[in-house]
C-alpha cells in the first residue's frame, strides 16, 4: 500500500514537472497566433481567444526568410558535419593512440571550455578580417568546425569500446585510419548522433557568432535575422514569438528523429 502511495506521489511530482516544462512552450506557440490586444486583455489565457497569422506574415514578408533559413542550414549543417569528423578524429587519437602530448592535448581541450566566448570575440573578428574571411561562409564555418565538448564526449565513449575489436582488425592488417573508419565510427553511432544533434542545435541557435562575423543581410542566419524585429521599444509580441517558433521547428524535428539515441541513455554509456 505504501509503495503505491509512494509511486503515486512520485508520478504526481513528475507530472508537475511535465506541466512546468511544457506550459511555456504551449504559451509561446499560442502567443505567436495572438493579436496584441488579445494578449493584453486576457493574460491568464494560455491559448489565443482570437487567432491571427500576422506574426508569421510579418516574419515572412519583412525578412529574406528563405535565404536566412538556407544560411542557417548551410552554417549549422556543414559545421556540424565537419565538427563530428574532426572531433571524432581527435577523440580517436586521444583514446586509442598513446602518444606523447596526449595528456597535454586533453587538458588543453578542457581548458578552452573555461573561457567565455565574449572574450575571444574581438581578437577572432580581427583575425578573420586579416584572413579576408569576414562575411563569408568559410569565416562562419571553419573557426567553429571543432568543439571541445564533442572531443571530450567522444573520447570518453571511444574509451569504453572494447579494445578486442581493434585488436581483431589490427591482426587482419588494418591501420589506424581503417580501424577508425570501419570499427570505431560504426560502433559509436549513438554517440556520434548525440554529438551531431547537440552541435547542430547549438550552431542553429547561435546568435552572437553569425551576427558578429557577417554584415550583409543575405548572410544572416535565421536567429540572427529575427533579432531585426527586436528593439528597445518594440511591442509586437506575435512577431517575436512567431520567429521563435519557426526557429524551433527544425530543431524539434531533428530532436524527434534522434532522441532515442541520447534520451534512452545509450549514447552516453561512455560517461560512466
Amino acid at each position, binding site marked *: 500500500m505504501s509503495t503505491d502511495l509512494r509511486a503515486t506521489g512520485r508520478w504526481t511530482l513528475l507530472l508537475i514537472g511535465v506541466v512546468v516544462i511544457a506550459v511555456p512552450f504551449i504559451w509561446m506557440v499560442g502567443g505567436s497566433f495572438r493579436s496584441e490586444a488579445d494578449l*493584453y486583455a486576457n493574460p491568464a489565457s494560455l491559448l489565443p481567444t482570437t487567432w491571427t497569422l500576422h506574426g508569421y506574415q510579418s516574419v515572412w514578408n519583412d525578412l529574406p526568410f528563405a535565404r536566412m533559413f538556407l544560411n542557417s542550414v548551410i552554417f549549422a549543417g556543414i559545421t556540424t558535419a565537419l565538427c563530428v569528423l574532426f572531433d571524432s578524429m581527435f577523440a580517436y587519437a586521444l583514446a586509442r593512440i598513446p602518444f606523447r602530448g596526449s595528456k597535454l592535448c586533453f587538458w588543453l581541450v578542457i581548458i578552452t571550455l573555461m573561457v567565455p566566448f565574449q572574450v575571444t570575440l574581438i581578437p577572432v573578428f580581427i583575425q578573420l578580417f586579416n584572413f579576408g574571411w569576414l*562575411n563569408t561562409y568559410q569565416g562562419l*564555418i571553419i573557426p567553429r568546425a571543432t568543439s571541445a565538448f564533442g572531443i571530450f564526449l567522444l573520447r570518453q565513449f571511444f574509451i569504453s569500446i572494447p579494445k578486442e575489436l581493434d585488436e581483431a582488425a589490427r591482426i587482419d592488417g588494418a591501420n589506424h585510419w581503417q580501424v577508425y573508419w570501419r570499427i570505431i565510427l560504426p560502433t559509436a553511432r549513438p554517440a556520434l548522433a548525440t554529438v551531431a544533434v547537440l552541435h547542430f542545435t547549438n550552431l542553429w541557435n547561435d546568435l552572437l557568432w553569425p551576427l558578429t562575423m557577417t*554584415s550583409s543581410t543575405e548572410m544572416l542566419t535565421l536567429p540572427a535575422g529575427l533579432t531585426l*524585429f527586436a528593439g528597445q*521599444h*518594440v511591442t509586437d509580441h506575435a512577431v517575436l514569438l512567431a520567429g521563435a517558433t519557426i526557429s524551433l521547428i527544425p530543431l524539434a524535428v531533428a530532436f524527434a528523429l534522434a532522441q532515442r539515441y541520447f534520451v534512452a541513455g545509450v549514447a552516453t554509456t561512455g560517461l560512466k
Partner: protein
Amino acid sequence: MPKSLTIAAALAASALALAGCAGPAPSQPSTTSSSSQEKVALTLWTGFTGGDRPAYDALVKAFNDSHPDIQVTMEVQPWDTIGQKLPAAWATGQGPDLATPNFDPNILSQYLKTNSLLPITATGTGEGQIDVEHLAPAAIKAFTQDGKLYAVPANVATLQLYYNKALFAAAGIAAPPTTVDEFRADAQKLTGNGVFGLSIADHETIQMWPILQWLDGSDIVDQNNCSLLSSPETVKSLSAWSKLVIDKFAPVGLSGAESDSLFSAGKAAMQLNGPWAAAGYTKAGIDLGVAAVPAGVNGSTTLASTVPMAISAKTKYPVQAQEFLAWWTGKTAQRQFALDSGFPPVRTDMADDAKLASNEVVAKFAAALPTARLYLPGVPSATKVDSDVYVTLIGQITRGEDVAKATAEATTKLNALTGCSK
C-alpha cells in the same frame, strides 16, 4: 603513401576549395576610380530594427532611384551588434562607408578617439551640400567637436505625452494636464482598477526621468559636467516623483518595452514617448491622444533624442557619402520620412510645409523641437553615467531609499566619472 596522409591531404584540399567558394563578396566599395561619373556603391549600417524600419528602407530606395550613379545598400543590425563590430571594422578599414554607430549621440566621442570619422566639409546651401544652418541645432551642436562637424542627424525625435482618452473620460478628466502640478494630480486620479496613472520606464529606454526633473526646474549636470543631483531642487523633484511610484501611481522597475506594453494594454493612462510608438498603440486598440508635455516651472521642455549618421574616415568615396547625407537631410527626403514615420523632420525650416502641418503626429512632435533638450549632451563617459549612476539612482529612490542619501552617493560617482573638479 599511408592512408592517413591521403586523408589529411584530401581534407586540406577540401578546406582550400571551401575557402575558394566564398559567399557573397564582402561589401566593400569597388576599387575603380572615384570620379563622380562612375557608378559608386556605398554601404550604410544602421540599427533601425523594429517598427519604423520601412520608413528608412523607403528613404534609401528613394535615394537610389534618384541617383543612378550612387547606389546605397543599407544593412540593418541590432544596435548592440553595431556597437561590437563597428569600432574594429572602421579601425581596420573594413567597415561600411556610412553608419549610425548608436542611438546615443554621445557615442561619437568614442569614434573620434580612434580617428574613425570623416570631418564633414560639404556644407552650404547648394546642391549636394549639407544645409547645416537649417538642421536641428541641438543635434548639430552635439555632433560638432573642435569646430568640425562629424555627423548629421539621421533622425530627431522628441517625447510627448501619450494619453488614453477612454481612461481619462472614465476618470472624469476633460483634458490632458498642462502644468506639472496637474500632471502629478492627474496621475493620482487616474490610478485605480488595475490601471496606473503614468507608465514610466527607468532602464533600457529612451530616458523619461530627466523630463520629470526638468519640469521642476532641476537638472542632472551643469555646464562643467558637475553633478546637480544633490542640489535642493533635484532632491525635491525626485522625492515628489518617486513618491508617485512608491504610492503605486506609477510602476517600478520597467524597461522601455515593458512600459510601452503597459500603455498598449490599456493599463496605464499616460506615457511620455516618441513618435515611433503611435502606430503600435493605435493597432493595439487604444483611443489615443497626443499632447504636449505639461509645462514646467521654466516653461515647455522635453527630451530630444537624435541618432548621428557619420562617415568612415577611411571611405573611398567621401564626396558621394556626403552627397548622400545632404540628400538625407534635404527637404524632399525629410518630408517623405516624416510622413512615413511620424518623426519630425530634422530641418527647422519646414514648419510651414503644408503636408507636414496637416499630419497630426508629425506636427505635435515637431512643435516640441525648438525647446527640446538632449540627455547628458557632451558629458564625458555619458554611457557609464547613465548606466552606473542615473539608472541606479532612479532604481533606488523608486524602491524607497532615502532620496538625499541616494543623490549624495550618485553625485560622488558622477563627478568621479566626468572628472568634475569641484
